[in-house]
């Protein structure tokens, strides 16, 4: 008897839809903050960093000014550190500007339980006192376990709890897309 795992992938957003969603988010950020002179983008490792870079590019194209960008590693702030079987890989937080009094926009790929965002907010607070923290995500898949809501959402995707949503990015050697992955175990 052998067990085979087959992975079924259904694409929910393709490259163009992702670009359109990010472009809309860039416009919304500028509209809500009346420009971007007091705004800082902070991507959450790993996927959020690349999305933040894209948003930075879009924002500066639209507004013709630059916006500061940082990277946040939340490993040390996780609430499940002791519960995980594998040690998460520790990376560097790199925020090369003072966050105090800036409107910080956290950027992540998928918003799910909200625990990552909680950790990221704690991490940010340890670096200073931002005037505001806003949240931009490419996908909101629901199932929050904390009272957290995104200010900018690329797409709302209703999911079942055990479904797997993955954002694939060009920067990580994949074709840009958002997919629902269904893993089926077959016994033969």
């Amino acid at each position: 008897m052998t067990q085979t795992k087959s992975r079924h992938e259904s694409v929910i957003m393709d490259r163009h839809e992702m670009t359109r969603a990010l472009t809309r988010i860039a416009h919304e950020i500028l509209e809500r903050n009346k420009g971007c002179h007091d705004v800082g983008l902070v991507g959450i490792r790993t996927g959020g960093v690349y999305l933040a870079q894209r948003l930075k590019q879009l924002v500066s194209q639209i507004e013709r000014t630059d916006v500061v960008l940082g990277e946040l590693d939340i490993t040390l702030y996780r609430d499940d550190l002791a519960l995980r079987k594998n040690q998460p890989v520790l990376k560097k937080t790199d925020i090369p500007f003072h966050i105090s009094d800036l409107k910080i926009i956290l950027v992540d790929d998928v918003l799910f339980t909200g625990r990552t965002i909680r950790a990221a907010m704690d991490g940010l607070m340890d670096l200073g006192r931002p005037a505001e923290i806003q949240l931009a995500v490419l996908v909101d898949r629901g199932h929050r376990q904390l009272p957290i809501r995104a200010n900018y959402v690329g797409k709302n995707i209703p999911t079942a709890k055990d479904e797997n949503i993955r954002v694939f990015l060009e920067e990580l050697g994949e074709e840009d897309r958002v997919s629902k992955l269904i893993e089926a175990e077959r016994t033969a």
Partner: protein
Amino acid sequence: MSFKRKDLLGLASLSQEEMALILDAAEPFKEVSGREIKKVPALRGKTVINLFFEPSTRTRTSFELAAKRLSADVVNFSPSSSSVMKGETLLDTARNIEFMQADILVLRHSSAGAAEILARNSRLSVINAGDGWHEHPTQALSDLLTIQEKKGQVRDLHVAIVGDVAHSRVARSNIYALTKMGANVRVVGPPTMIPLCLHRLGVTVYHDFDEAISGVDVVIMLRLQLERQGRSLFPSIREYARLYGLTAERVQRAAKDVLVMHPGPVNRGVEIAHDVVDGNAAVILEQVANGVAVRMGLMYLLSQRN
């Protein structure tokens, strides 16, 4: 790969991959120590006990700061103020600490193997902060991190370790660390301070400092333990300083961008001249800064163990 060990007792038994893992874990913590709020919650609720049976300011403070910056609770035990004075054995002291639900025990002891005995007999994660003449692994790891940062890599570098190698746990840990990482290690000192058969550890032994220092990329000076002077290991401090002291002239013989290192505390004018301590080649204070980061990385890895 993840770090699977319960304790860090020495580098003799550590693989190159395990050492690299600790160094990688140390790297992000340098950023934390540079922040205005130098604290992350990774070890929140964990207890670290510093048990130091030998006087130490630098190492104990470094461990204490590392633990506190990880948000652990730290308790310092020193023998003069504890029940050790009342005749309690080391093992009983450790058992008591274990049953107070501590998580990590940092031990410095004058007997080689003390940390290992505690590690075998308790559930605590034990970190050896120096045991007799045996090992001082976190110092050697800090030195490795410093060399790696300054030189890009350790492999194929020529490193001289100079001084009282026989009585130095720093030297022993550094020899293990550097040879495993692929460096060429020379040890230099008077015959009374070089153990017999040291070449078996894969190092080259020299007695002439001028010869040994030529062309090296890194010089690690060991502290001359002045308290040992009564044991006739050398005729006079003055003679020792002349033969084995690192002077600006000797630095000239080394490679152009040589790193001068010292585990501290420095005897200025004895094993190392004033102008060398304060010179451009010295990275002694970087070693201290990296010491905190390495200890944070190590405690983080040990606390991840399930």
